[in-house]
């Protein structure tokens, strides 16, 4: 007889079989599997109160992606493309971003043990800066007028490029460059566009998205027009000096290289005030906790003639969780109605 065991083996549960990933039970092997794809699209939710009666309009809730925005798709495709081309080998990443691409890149880079430096325009909310730092990224806040000569309002982009291309840093950095990298367009051409087409059973007639990096506009616009050339693509542009993070006014910022103007049928300019007013309406009337760029897109969408527009899909790039500092003035005493 051996040494008596202190454990009553009859009562020890057998080790459980390891759980494997099972998307039907929403069980995943890795957070990256949650990034939207044709098999796992982000939801389309109908707008019932903030658009004219009779209009069939939906927002595509891109903030249901795991890192919280439409940029999860972009970041995944950017990194995959760089890896395939051998650009990542042993290098650090540097990228200019108003926050969401940085957050998605930082999460993916952290998973892969890659260091990331983010140059970020001044005025980006503190919430995003802290998220980036929580994910381990090095953050360089950049005034837009950094180059005293060029004054291009694109200081963050110029700084990221200088970090990547300076002779002293040779071979150290790789820059995804979401503004010029065709993989940004491909992300939306291969996922967002087909999702919208399939989710609307091919009935979509108008697509609305913002001028930002223009990856969504170009990729989705191109895909949808290939399915049906009659689909109208509407771009939303903020005014100069706006406070709508993620959106770009193409007079004060350079048009991104990946913008294909031939897919844009119409540009709607939106002021900050109606954009924020619509953001608050989306919170209060639709129960949608969205960021300010969604407010701008929904405002533009609601101004369309509903018979001409047909079924409308607008992009909701991110949620309102990161914008407390932007919304504070909307809910101050006396401003809450």
């Amino acid at each position, binding site marked *: 007889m051996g040494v008596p065991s202190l454990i009553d083996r009859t009562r020890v549960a057998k080790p459980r079989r390891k759980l494997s990933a099972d998307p039907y039970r929403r069980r995943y092997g890795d957070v990256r599997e949650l990034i939207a794809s044709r098999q796992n699209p982000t939801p389309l939710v109908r707008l019932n109160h903030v658009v004219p009666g009779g209009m069939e309009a939906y927002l595509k809730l891109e903030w249901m992606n795991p890192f919280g925005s439409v940029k999860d798709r972009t970041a995944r495709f950017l990194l995959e493309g760089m890896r395939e081309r051998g650009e990542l080998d042993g290098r650090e990443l540097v990228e200019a971003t108003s926050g969401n691409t940085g957050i998605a890149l930082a999460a993916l880079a952290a998973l892969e043990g890659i260091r990331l430096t983010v140059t970020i325009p001044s005025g980006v909310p503190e919430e995003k800066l802290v998220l980036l730092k929580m994910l381990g990224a090095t953050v360089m806040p950049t005034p837009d007028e*950094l180059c005293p*000569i060029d004054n291009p309002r694109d200081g963050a982009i110029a700084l990221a490029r200088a*970090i990547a291309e300076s002779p002293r840093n040779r071979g150290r950095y790789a820059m995804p460059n979401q503004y010029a990298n065709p993989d940004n367009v491909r992300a939306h051409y291969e996922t967002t566009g087909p999702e919208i087409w399939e989710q609307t059973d091919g009935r979509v007639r108008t697509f609305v998205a913002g001028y930002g990096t223009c990856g969504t506009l170009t990729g989705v616009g191109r895909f949808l027009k290939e399915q049906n050339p009659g689909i109208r693509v509407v771009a939303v542009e903020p005014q100069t000096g706006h406070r709508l993070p993620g959106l770009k006014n193409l007079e004060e910022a350079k048009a991104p290289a990946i913008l294909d103007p031939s897919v844009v049928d119409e540009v709607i300019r939106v002021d900050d005030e109606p954009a924020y007013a619509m953001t608050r309406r989306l919170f209060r009337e639709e129960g949608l906790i969205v960021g300010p760029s969604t407010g701008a897109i929904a405002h533009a969408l609601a101004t369309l003639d509903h018979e001409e527009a047909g079924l409308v899909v607008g992009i909701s790039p991110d949620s309102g969780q990161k914008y407390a500092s932007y919304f504070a003035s909307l809910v101050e005493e006396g401003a809450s109605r």
Partner: protein
Amino acid sequence: MSVLVADRELDCKGLLCPLPVYQTSQAIGKLGPGQVLKVECTDPGSLEDFPALARQRGLTLLSAEERDGMQVFYLRKEAA
């Protein structure tokens, strides 16, 4: 010719615009009033950038010289 003495030095050799301007802006923040920063650059654009930076940030550009492909600047932070 008086000899300029720097309280701090910044090496921006091998860095492209706007990195030298960015790093200089950061370094100026750490200077006390009246202190002098010496910056060495190799990006020819800095010959235009630094006078503009000085105007923008209220600094005195004591000297700007180029020799052997290197630009050397002396900037003094004035009292606020």
